[in-house]
């Protein structure tokens, strides 16, 4: 994700998702912060952190207390699974991940 902001107070970045249909799967995210940004505590050390399912509160990916770099702040993120996949029927499983940036 790339966030561009000229707000000197900075911004925060969060993530949430819908459940997989037809059966949920343990989707998770790993993230690293750009220069000057602080990654959310759960992501320290490159851990894969389960993404909460809405309407649960979004997981804080990180925040920055200053405006972004000229080309935007790149939050390197990877999607994966936080645990072994459960035994589910073969087929197509879909979910939607929402990244939210809010000005501080």
């Amino acid at each position: 994700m790339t966030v561009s902001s000229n707000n000197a107070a900075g911004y925060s970045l969060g993530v949430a998702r819908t459940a997989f249909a037809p059966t949920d799967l343990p989707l998770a995210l790993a993230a690293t912060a750009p220069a000057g940004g602080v990654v959310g505590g759960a992501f320290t050390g490159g851990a894969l952190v389960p993404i909460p399912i809405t309407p649960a509160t979004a997981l804080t990916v990180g925040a920055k207390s200053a405006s972004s770099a000229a080309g935007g702040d790149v939050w390197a993120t990877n999607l994966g699974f936080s645990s072994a996949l459960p035994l589910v029927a073969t087929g197509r499983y879909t979910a939607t991940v929402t990244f939210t940036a809010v000005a501080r």
Partner: protein
Amino acid sequence: MRSAHALALFTVLALAPAPSAEGAGAERPRVALFVSPAHLTVAAPGSRKINVRNDGAERVVVDVARRAVARQTGTKTWFQVLPSRLSLRSGRSAVLTLRVKPRGAEPGEHQVLVLLTTRAPRGNHVTLRVRLGVRVSVRVPGRIVRHLALGGLRIHRTRGARFMFVSVANRGNVTEQLRGHVTAWLLQHGRPLARLRPAVRRALSPGSRALLALRYGGRVRGLVIAAVRVRLGPGGRVVERRYRLRL
């Protein structure tokens, strides 16, 4: 002149490689939303404009919603953002109009988030949505009246526990937060006997009532005093009432 704050969010292409889009450069992200200002203040009655631009390679549909922050107050009647949905081709802009009416709003400061969410483009197994939050500070004129009344206490005795119910009425003109703001103690002979954990709804809107439930599972019986305290608002004024009762 004060410069407007802008906020833009781009999705990377790692999960959903972008198809070649009409007129879009190879480096252009598939979904990219821009909004300005990202933080604004409005005094009621008043209105503001919010600019939204699609900097991505694809047409996007953006849903617009609002959410109160911190104060548990509804915004439905007095805070309006129009239109509630936008359809933007790549590179196109639109203007949202935000209107705040004082009627129906509680006096004081409100923090509202205007959330702009792109509809998920077709992806493979995981689709990505981008959401930008515009922070809006609203000032509603009027004198703030905080008046919370603690009513009578009713006790219900069971074999293992005593349940106490205290009625609470909000006679002020602003919503009062209850959860985390209520403390209750049992005292006997002037000394604390037990701290009670109140079960109560999160907030109480003006003119409404609620019941505060207190449970005591201890063995002490006889005459005691139950002290109930509610801390009101950011100023920390305290409403307290003491009840003499027999457990």
